[in-house]
């Protein structure tokens, strides 16, 4: 497989790349398939030129790839231009496997912070100049770097599915049967004593945030005061799953905040590299489990880019309908979550979930499952929708959902308590939002007009007439308003899609295959998921399994804005700021 990558065709240089090559000479080399390779000495300098002079000011995705046979690690950067739109500027940096050191680009794009930590966590690539290079998804005491191609997990069977033990011999023994305690534990449950077990991993985290010993935050009314370190989460009702914030508090004021994640980590990407292409589809449902249809869409778009197939008309329309229904459902549920955090305990939440139920009914009719839809295929969808589905859909889109959106607005928009809690809270400036890689409603609420559906239209989004909803202040209230506006735009798109949809027709391009040939290459497919830009970076070596499968998880990168937004605010505001980012831990931790 690796032989194929070495003999891979080199990328054609675009005029911009040629311009860089003329200027920096040997430091720029064309890479395989797409993009350029920048030498490590010049990386930061060239990255600054890419951002400031070429205008690619939005670093969307940064990830590592392990080329085991060739003996180097590669970091792949996908930078986009907010103003110009269009496709990515792809550049790469390489380091030998025995001494993987690559300069950090956090000084150019702050969104590289979490992503470089992730690449360090997964590949052990040392990013020189990174301010806080710690593990992020794995726990600090973890041995090894799990995404390296020579790393093997416990109960390792084979590199690639399908495993030979399942057919035709069928001599498979479940993993638990193979361990000595007949259960999925590493130590004997009979002798394990939680009292004597002390994890050492917390030290690094706390040293970053605890006040300097002996220092005092001052004296209030003659009383000596100290900053306090408080752990919010991982099991806190407002952290949207198992997410933990370590905050340093001066009274109620947040002085420092570190997000801690990875509690739901299952190495989705390693699983993805074991799977065949089509086996990955149901796994993408589990990323952002509220919007599984959008995740399906993103993955399908990425693989279709590699394969070069295009779904038939009817399938394209069904896809848009599903994706926009997901957006409506997610944003309405967001209104419920947000008010929940502000103290309106569960009443608006349940109202939002009523509409969600009806949309999930539609998903169940079409795909067979309410949440884990697994509905998209490469070049089409699983099955056609019937008349009953269309009747229900039309009723929802034309009558019920507009009415319910109005009702949600009536409930929240002018409510004085909501307004006084959220206006001016958790402000994110537009330049910060772009630099930190915020995506989706979070970015647009700061007044940045960027939507993947308009910037680089995928599917048939170029045919629909809709607006990008933006806010002005970039606070929690604006994020709510942007989402309500997007619900209305989505309903608008849905109406157009229903009207334009061909009444009959194919729903799958070509023959449906359980193991198809995906040509060797690299592709970055991204879609505007309800929570923001969701990207899939795929490297194929021509075999039935992806060589590299990376998810640019929206929530993960959006959480990088939390520290900026919360420091200086009250602790209660930090909670609703977290709520306004709208994250799902299944996607953040992957």
């Amino acid at each position: 497989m690796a032989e194929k990558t070495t003999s891979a065709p080199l990328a054609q240089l675009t005029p911009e790349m040629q311009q860089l090559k003329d200027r920096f000479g040997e430091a720029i080399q064309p890479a395989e398939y797409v993009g350029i390779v920048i030498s490590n000495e010049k990386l930061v300098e060239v990255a600054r030129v890419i951002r400031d002079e070429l205008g690619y000011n939005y670093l969307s995705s940064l990830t590592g790839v392990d080329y085991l046979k060739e003996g180097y690690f590669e970091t792949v950067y996908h930078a986009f231009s907010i103003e110009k739109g269009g496709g990515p500027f792809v550049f790469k940096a390489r380091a030998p496997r025995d001494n993987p050191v690559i300069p950090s680009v956090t000084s150019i794009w702050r969104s590289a912070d979490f992503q470089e930590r992730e690449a360090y966590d997964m590949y052990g690539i040392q990013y020189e100049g990174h301010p806080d290079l710690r593990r992020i998804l794995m726990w600090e005491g973890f041995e090894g770097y799990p995404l390296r191609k020579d790393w093997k997990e416990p109960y390792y069977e084979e590199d690639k599915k399908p495993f030979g033990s399942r057919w035709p011999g069928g001599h498979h023994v479940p993993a638990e049967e193979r361990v000595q305690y007949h259960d999925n534990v590493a130590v004997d449950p009979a002798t394990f004593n939680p009292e004597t077990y002390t994890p050492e991993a917390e030290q690094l985290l706390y040293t970053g945030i605890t006040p300097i010993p002996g220092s005092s935050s001052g004296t209030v009314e003659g009383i000596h005061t100290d900053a306090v370190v408080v752990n919010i989460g991982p099991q806190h009702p407002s952290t949207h799953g198992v997410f933990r914030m370590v905050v340093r508090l001066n009274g109620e004021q947040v002085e420092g905040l570190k997000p801690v994640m990875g509690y739901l980590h299952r190495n989705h990407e390693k699983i993805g590299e074991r799977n065949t292409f089509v086996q990955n589809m149901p796994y993408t449902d589990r990323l952002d489990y509220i919007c599984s249809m959008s995740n399906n869409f993103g993955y399908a778009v990425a693989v279709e880019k590699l394969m070069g197939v295009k779904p038939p008309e009817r399938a394209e329309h069904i896809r848009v309908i599903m994706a926009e229904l997901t957006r409506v459902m997610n944003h309405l549920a967001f209104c419920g979550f947000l008010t929940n955090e502000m103290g309106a305990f569960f009443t608006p939440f349940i109202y939002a979930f009523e509409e969600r139920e009806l949309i999930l009914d539609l998903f169940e009719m079409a795909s067979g499952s309410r949440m884990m839809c697994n509905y998209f295929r490469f070049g089409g969808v699983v099955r056609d929708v019937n008349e009953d589905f269309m009747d229900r859909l039309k009723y929802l889109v034309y009558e019920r959902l507009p009415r319910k959106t109005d009702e949600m607005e009536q409930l929240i928009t002018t409510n004085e308590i909501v307004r006084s809690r959220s206006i001016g809270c958790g402000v994110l400036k537009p330049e910060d939002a772009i630099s930190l890689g915020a995506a989706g409603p979070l970015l647009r609420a700061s007044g940045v007009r960027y939507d993947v559906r308009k910037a680089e239209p995928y599917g048939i989004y170029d045919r629909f007439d809709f607006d990008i909803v933006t806010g002005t202040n970039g606070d929690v209230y604006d994020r709510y308003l942007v989402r309500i506006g997007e619900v209305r735009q989505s309903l608008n798109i849905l109406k157009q899609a229903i009207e334009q949809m061909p009444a009959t027709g194919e729903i799958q391009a070509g023959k449906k295959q359980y193991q198809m040939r995906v040509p060797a290459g690299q592709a970055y497919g991204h879609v505007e998921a309800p929570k923001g830009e969701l990207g899939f970076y795929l490297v194929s070596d021509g075999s039935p399994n992806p060589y590299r499968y990376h998810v640019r998880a929206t929530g993960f990168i959006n959480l990088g804005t939390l520290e900026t937004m919360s420091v200086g605010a009250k602790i209660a505001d930090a909670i609703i700021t977290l709520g306004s980012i709208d994250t799902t831990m299944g996607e953040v931790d992957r």
Partner: protein
Amino acid sequence: MSYGLGIAKGMWVTLQHFVDTYIQDAQYLFRSNKVRSSKLMERQGPKNARGLFTVEYPYEKLPMSENFRMIPFLVYNSQTGQERCTSCGICAKVCPPQCIWIVRGADPETKRPKPEPVEFVIDATICMSCGSCAEFCPFDAIKMDQNYERAAYDRWGELILTKDMLMKPDTYHYQLHPSAKEAEAATIAKSEKAKNR
């Protein structure tokens, strides 16, 4: 705008929802037996659903759509007793969590593979209900069941499904998936041809 009007408007919405619950309850209280699912669907459908959104599970159960999927099962012909599976192994190959394992049959004398499974195991604790096996089966032999009440005390005995637990008659299959009957005629013929070869 006077302060408090926004809250009052919100309260009005809440009051409407509150009243709606009682109206709906009263409407359907005398009209039908609660467990009758056709009325339930009417009540919970998009046109009528207001106020009351929950059903009193397990006394009321909403019917599932035809495509609803849970754990797979194997289909056999209820008249002849012949199973449709030819042990081609596509379901085991396509299964994302690899929870299906099959022992292919062999002729005792010639040792050549026979188109029927000797053992067919699905680990229901690992199955992710994706439906890929049913989707890609060329013989329509494996289908998705809809029995979602699968809690069990013992994983090893009750949730590792063996062939005798998986085999269900085609009448059961057509009851779950009424629209499948016509569509499957061609593939069943294909399966029988493969068996009798």
